[in-house]
Structure formats: C-alpha cells, structure tokens
C-alpha cells in the first residue's frame, strides 16, 4: 500500500499544477481511506472543482471536502500608523 504521505503530496501537487485549479493554499490529509481537504476559497464552484481534481489524483479514497467559502466583509476600520 502506498504511504499516505505520498498520496497527500501527490494530491497537493495536482491541486497546484492542474490548470483547472492552480491552488497552493489547500491542506491535504490522508487518514485511512479518507482524503481531507481544508482551507478557504472564493466560491462554491471552485470548492467543488478542487474536490474533483483531488479525487482524480487519489482514486479509491473518499474525499471529505471541508473547504470553506471565504466571506469578504466591507473595508472595516482604518489603522493609523
């Protein structure tokens, strides 16, 4: 059986290098038969796409998509330096 660290590394590379995602900021963990994805993205479509690319890079594992969609608030308080 392939070591889970190598599977996670392959998925992380796929997310970075696949033209559909080019995503560098997602944490990937493999635990048993499950692949966990964590991080923040800008929208639901992207969240789903990342799970697709991850699933293709790790066939046989169940993808647990725990990525959240970032909510961007208004400009907020200014800071005086």
């Amino acid at each position: 059986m392939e070591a889970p660290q190598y599977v996670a590394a392959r998925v992380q590379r796929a997310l970075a290098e696949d033209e559909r995602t080019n995503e560098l900021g997602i944490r990937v963990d493999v635990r048993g038969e499950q692949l966990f994805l964590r991080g923040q993205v800008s929208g639901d479509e992207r969240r789903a796409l990342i799970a697709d690319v991850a699933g293709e890079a790790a066939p046989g594992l169940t993808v647990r998509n725990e990525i959240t969609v970032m909510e961007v608030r208004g400009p907020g308080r200014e800071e005086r330096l």
Partner: protein
Amino acid sequence: MREVRIAAVGDVHLDESLRGRYRERLDGVEEHADVLLLAGDLTRHGTLEEGRVVADEFRGLPIPVVAVLGNHDHHSDLPAEIAALLSGAGITVLHDDATVLDIDGVRLGVAGGKGFGGGYAGKCASDFGEPEIKAFVGHTKRIADRWRVALKELQADRRVVLSHYSPVKDTLHGEPLEIYPFLGSYLLAEVVDAEGADLIVHGHAHAGTEKGVTPGGIRVRNVALPVLGRAYGVYCL
C-alpha cells in the same frame, strides 16, 4: 501636512467566474482611501483572459491604483502582457521601480515589485553551489538591488513599499515553517530598512497574519485577501 489613507489588498485571484464581484466591493472606496495598492496574485493562472477581468474590475476608479504582479500572474509566462492590460486600464504597475502620486499636495511615493523568496536571516538559501540555487537566490538579490536604487531616488513626503512576497517572517505566522523560503526573503527588508520607508505592504501568505515589523522598525502589513477577510485594509500615514 494631511494624512494619506492607503487602501491595500492582494491575492484577489480573479477569473471570469468572479467578474463584477470585486468591483461591487469597491463602491465608495474614495470615501475610505486616497489610493489603492494591489499586492500581486491578481489572477489565478496568469492568463490574458484573467488579466482582462482584473483590468476591468479596477478600471476607472475615482482614486489612483498601483499594482505589482505575483507568482500566479507569472504562471502562463505572460507577465508583460498582463502588466500591459493593467496599464491600459489606467493602473500603474511597478517593476522594481517607483511612482510618485500627488495626494492633495502630499507626495506619496510607492516603490516595489513582485519580490521573491530565499528565506529569512540565518535560515535562508545562499548564492552558492549549483546554478539552480544561484539562480533562485540571484533573482532575489537583483530585485533587492533594484529596490535600493528605486528608494534612493524616490523623492516623496511619505514612502510605501509594495511587494507580493513578504520581507519579514512576522506576517507569516500560521504558514508552515518549511515553506518560509518560498514566501519571501529578508533581503527585501534589508534594503528597505537601509533606505527608509513608512510602510511595507505585501500579500502571498494566505495563512499568515496581518501585522509585522522589519528589524529596522518599519511597519509591515500582509494584505492577502484571506488574511484580511475584508475587501481591503486601510492604513493612514
């Protein structure tokens, strides 16, 4: 002399699916700030299509916009073409040089560029060994040298350095230690400390923190969108 209000954000990673969505967050930006700085990674893949979305989102704002590119904006090997799209939309793009804006009679100097990696003092790559390592470190050294010249020549009342990569570790807390050398370089801070500035803003470190300071005491702000969690930060000098 009046206060200058600087809005800044980086890592907006726009593409066609986000067209119009950033623009709506910029409504009334002129009430909050005198200038908007964009700290790189404006696109996802660095394609011309994405570059056009960025140009359109930030085109024709009532305040000046100054930008640098990030590593994502280089991914398709079209940085010059993307910069040209932004320039065509009236955005000033810095390439290791500087610009001076007149804000109601106050000269605001903005210097900088993409920056690059290498790591931080005592825990960094050196210009030694294989050509690949020398090329990596040499890229940062050349950038730092150009920033030194730009800052030396910059005549302004307030001075801000705009970068994509981080000049300090302070604003990286939350990022894995192992990737620090890919998030920035102390060489960038060293030249700014030597030549002087009032503020450094950068992006790139999505899991980092907002506030830091250089060894010489210059305030640093990580304005990556995921760090700010708001449309832009506003800093008054």
